[in-house]
């Protein structure tokens, strides 16, 4: 993850032709590149898209994907929805909370669409199925070893 500098933000805005109706897409690209949206970026976007800061802020706050705090090195999302609950996601989440260190940001997600092979976990953008506590530990270590 790199700094949310002027150049990077304006490159993303330009990619979407600076259109205000592309705000959700622009923010999604920023989060994919940088992991989060800083207060400074919100200010830059408001200027570049000719929107009020409140407008941009409102959109950022509304969507779960748009983090406003810098996440850890790894992002681990454990599905908390019903199909995964039926296969022990609550227990898996408790296990994960006990297992991870500061390099990992744990987040809830409501359905990864992998409901026939529950419980499902997404690690750094990759979805894993049939995740037992043991498999979670294995996947997590290989994630951390990969650097």
């Amino acid at each position, binding site marked *: 993850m790199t700094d949310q500098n002027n150049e990077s933000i304006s490159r993303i805005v330009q990619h979407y032709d600076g259109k205000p109706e592309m705000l959700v897409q622009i923010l999604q690209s920023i989060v994919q590149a940088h992991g989060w949206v800083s207060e400074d970026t919100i200010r830059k976007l408001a200027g570049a898209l000719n929107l009020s800061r409140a407008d941009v802020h409102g959109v950022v706050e509304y969507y779960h994907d748009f983090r406003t705090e810098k996440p850890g090195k790894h992002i681990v999302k454990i599905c908390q929805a019903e199909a995964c609950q039926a296969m022990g996601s609550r227990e898996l989440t408790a296990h994960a909370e006990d297992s991870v260190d500061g390099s990992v940001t744990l987040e809830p997600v409501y359905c990864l*669409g992998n*409901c026939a092979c529950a419980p499902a976990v997404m690690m750094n953008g990759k979805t894993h199925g049939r995740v037992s506590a043991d498999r979670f530990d294995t996947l997590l270590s290989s994630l951390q070893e990969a650097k």
Partner: protein
Amino acid sequence: MPATKIYVPRETTSVSVGADEVALAIARQAKKTGAKIQLIRNGSWGACWLEPLVEVEVDGVRIAYGNVTPEDVPALFEAGLGGKHDKCLGPVNEIDYLVSQDRWTFWRCGLTDPLSLEDFLAHQGFKALQKAWDIGADAVISEVTESGLRGRGGAGFPAGIKWRTVADAEGDQKYIACNADEGDSGTFSDRMLMEGDPFGLIEAMAIAGYAVGASKAYIYLRSEYPLTHMILSRALDTAREAGWLGDDIQGSGFNFDIDLHLGAGSYVCGEETAMLESLEGKKGIVRYKPPLPAHEGLFGKPTVVNNVVTLASVPNIINLGGERYAGMGVNRSTGTLAFQLAGNIKRGGLVEKSFGITLRELIEGYGGGTASGRPVKAVQVGGPLGAYLPDSQLDIRLDYEAFTEISAMIGHGGIVVFDDTADMAQQARFAMEFCAIESCGKCTPCRIGSTRGVEVIDRMINDEKRDENYDLLVELCDTMEDASLCAMGGMTPYPVRSVLKHFAEDFASGGQK
């Protein structure tokens, strides 16, 4: 000797349980042994419990191997490709789970290479679009109307009527907006279709655009589906390069293009007006209706909003006729639905069947019961806003109206099974909690009611003033149901009430009076 074709799915579920690693192991083993192979990354057939499902083509027959791991690969080569192995399931087209289905919409899924336009064209690709141009827009809409096809996103609104409304609406610009924000837990049919047959969706959207006079379309894809995004993006680029999207498609004079937009983790954006707001770059706040999106939709223009599977059902309706589609199913629930067996189920996956099948036939016949081997306690149909059904309701035929009668819904066809260890009071609590997390906040019953609902249920679980809290919860459900702006607040009471009705014993000392 020609190269042996080996199929390994590139689809979220199969990849989530190791398909990429298996594909890599196969490529390495082929290199090591000098075997001549052609590795094809197909879509999934939908037998998720068998994933990764590898197929080896021998004399034109595709031999299937289930639950293949990278460690199995050397033995598969040693046995002679397509030969005997513990994991061999025989020809894929003889697997009962698959051959007994009514594959109308998903027939290409698993069969073809989703990113090969050549393969798509060799399997009826764009035939329906060309037929649509021949018969004309009006006849296309008539076929869709005659088919009885209803919206597969959950609401079940007749697609033909929606298309006719948009076709008749005044407007210099009209839009097709494909709802691919498949947020209901237990559902993955949109995803499997987009990953397994992306050109099929592109063709379907072009037909819709031609029928109603829309030159511009959007796919609103949820961000939780990164692999789907990659596959769809590539398919859209390929279609554009080959002249199947853009101006004057294949010299027909028809202009049509599709933009792919990503959601950002909001469940409510699956509601059509919230989705339109999000497509306009705004917060996904639900709009008041009327005006209907068919009259004033995206950027205020007439817009067809259809779910992925609804659209993808259309090409075969054009190819084979609306009458044939209408001949399947029961009553006003015509055609097929891609049911999705999920949660605690032994043989989870996608089962496309005509309406009229029962939940028991799906769960026991196809699904083989629970994964844990314990008795089924409850089945949630239709996502987080769907009722929890007890065993006694599993023999009701799947039909939109029959489900409405029992205060349940079929929704997007997701079927989530729970075994007897499930605590249904917690599930009722979760229904309210989920609504509190995902409410767009526009209307009070949903925004505030859901939070109050969690509190009331917590008190019931803790056995505080249970009679009083029971009455309060019922009253709260009435308010949310009657006064919410959309299905989020309006249907959250469904799972809650179903738990009160069928599983009251799960509240500490019985929530029921």
